[in-house]
């Protein structure tokens, strides 16, 4: 897994690659937690290069989204494909999170 963060205006765009499983997810959660602690409030998570996600990844996303909601932050997702998209759908995440086709489409909403 690789995590790349770049900033556009006040938005932290976080790209995550390869696998978010029980082994690699703590790394993602720590990066996100550090950014939030530093005061970042608006996130766009780009999953276009993510091939695999398990419930460990989903749990961490839910934890982060709940924390941001409590701090008046915002988190959007883009670029889900293949099994990642399917797992989000069957877990009901499309109805609780803001998910967009592409980074461009998500940025228009911020």
């Amino acid at each position, binding site marked *: 897994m690789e995590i790349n963060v770049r900033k556009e205006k006040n938005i932290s765009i976080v790209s995550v690659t390869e696998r978010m499983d029980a082994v690699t997810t703590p790394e993602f959660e720590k990066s996100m937690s550090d950014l939030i602690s530093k005061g970042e409030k608006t996130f766009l998570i780009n999953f276009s290069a993510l091939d695999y996600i398990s419930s460990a990844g989903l749990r961490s996303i839910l934890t982060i989204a709940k924390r941001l909601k409590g701090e008046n932050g915002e988190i959007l997702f883009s670029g889900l494909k293949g*099994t990642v998209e399917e797992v989000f759908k069957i877990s009901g995440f499309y109805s609780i999170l803001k998910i967009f086709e592409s980074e461009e489409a998500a940025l228009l909403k911020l």
Partner: protein
Amino acid sequence: MNVLSTIKVPAKLEYLHRIMDGISQCARELGFDQKRISEIELAGEEALVNIFNYAYQGNVGDVEVICKLDRNERLIIEIIDSGTPFNLLSIEEPDTTVDISERRIGGLGVFLVKKLTDDVQCRREGEKNILTLIINKK
């Protein structure tokens, strides 16, 4: 029943990738497409992580994973531990329709195991928990 692979390792997270590599190699050799292989890996990971976290309650123990092909061309993945008696199927599923503030953090793993396989069976044999994931070749 034709045994394709078998692996026995300590029931610890650091062995997850090694077990997953074995499972996905079996699925690949049987001709499953990449999407189905990812789904099989996912079901396997959820079942294994559950065992890593709960089976031995802080003690050490092993987990054995056997991949087989049955007479009906189904991939059978048997996951065996010698830990506390446990039935994966007894875990309550999350409500996937409620909004984010009411959404529970747990229970998703078991839900995914059931959704992504064609059948799941749990049985206790002597001192062992045997979890069987069954995947049709379609």
